[in-house]
């Protein structure tokens, strides 16, 4: 059966905080708006146990914050579909196409807010300990490890920044890195390594994560010494890079070498009427508040584009 074509003002691809904020703004501006989310509405933040850096809330669970923004967006008329997966998009022409499993959408404007995925550890048992000892957000979850033994895996600037942040909680902090030298800049390294609670384990791979209900031990392999050993610890923060979710758009939009969609503060991409917002666009700071800010800008810019 041929798919039904649907015409609307705006499609927002990605229902994280950026996409939901854009939907809220677009809905209030009376744009017919649909958010398409492939995974979880709310994105990465939905897993956060406690958010303490979003203005207006002393402390709120990620899922509760998402629910509030989602309700706000829906109240103003935006539709959210988290079950109809996108098959392909065509963004290069004035007539833009977003084809899902069920429909062919022809929106006047598109906002891409698909965010980033933290590169995962290549450990099959990782899911068992996700948020139960294995974490991807030190800002969100670091406070759970006051006076505990924790480790950061990774050797770049982001990993070292995470380690520096976590030293204010940990009684002992390991930095686990598979290469023979950290790749973070020297100053960043010095700032972290001078702290007496920090110990760097170079040439070291994580072979296995173990524990009864929560993470208790890592099985490590020292490549230089060629020996495997157990490291007891309470938490592991993974910072081995991020991957922007842009594969679907790479044929239509200019991306940088890391895969981020090239767009400035106005969220405009190289294609008229297509905006990139939130973590997925080229930018320096990626926080919940900047995600919401990008959603705002992108929706206002889309409205301006549609109005013209």
């Amino acid at each position: 059966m041929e798919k039904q074509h649907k015409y609307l003002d705006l499609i927002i691809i990605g229902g994280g905080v950026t996409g939901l904020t854009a939907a809220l703004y677009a809905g209030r501006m009376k744009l017919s708006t649909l958010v398409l989310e492939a995974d979880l509405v709310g994105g990465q933040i939905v897993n956060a146990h406690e958010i303490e850096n979003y203005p207006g809330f002393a402390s709120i669970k990620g899922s509760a914050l998402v629910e509030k923004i989602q309700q706000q967006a829906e109240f103003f008329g935006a539709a959210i579909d988290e079950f109809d997966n996108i098959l392909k998009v065509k963004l290069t022409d004035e007539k833009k196409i977003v084809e899902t499993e069920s429909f062919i959408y022809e929106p006047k404007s598109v906002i891409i807010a698909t965010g980033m995925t933290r590169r995962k550890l290549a450990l099959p048992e990782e899911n068992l300990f996700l948020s139960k000892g294995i974490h991807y957000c030190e800002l969100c979850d670091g406070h759970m490890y006051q006076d505990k033994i924790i480790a950061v895996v990774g050797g770049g600037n982001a990993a070292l920044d995470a380690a520096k942040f976590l030293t204010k909680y940990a009684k002992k902090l390991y930095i686990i890195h598979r290469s023979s030298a950290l790749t973070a800049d020297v100053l960043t390294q010095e700032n972290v390594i001078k702290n007496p609670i920090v110990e760097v384990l170079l040439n070291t791979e994580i072979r296995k994560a173990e524990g009864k209900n929560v993470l208790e031990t890592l099985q490590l392999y020292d490549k230089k010494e060629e020996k495997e050993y157990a490291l007891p610890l309470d938490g592991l923060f993974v910072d081995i890079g991020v991957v922007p979710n842009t594969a679907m758009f790479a044929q239509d939009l200019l991306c940088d070498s890391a895969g981020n969609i090239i767009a400035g503060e106005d969220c405009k991409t190289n294609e008229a009427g297509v905006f990139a917002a939130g973590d997925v666009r080229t930018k320096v700071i990626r926080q919940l508040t900047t995600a919401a800010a990008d959603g705002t800008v992108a929706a206002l810019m889309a409205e301006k584009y549609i109005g013209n």
Partner: protein
Amino acid sequence: MVKVYSIPNCPWCEKVKKYLKLKNVAYEEFNVEDSDEARDELYKISGDQIVPVTTIDGKNYVVSFDKAKLDALLGL
């Protein structure tokens, strides 16, 4: 009756339940965090503690949210 093994505050469990509601599929939920019995049943079905698990007969099951697999399991 469709059975969903889940834990509270689990976003993928919520997504499975939301999908079943959308498709008007009646289900019974088993919280494996509160019930040893449910946890044992889950282990018998999947051999693991990962949730959500959706099943009808206790033999064929779907782990996490996978629309295509759920559709196949439930004949949607």
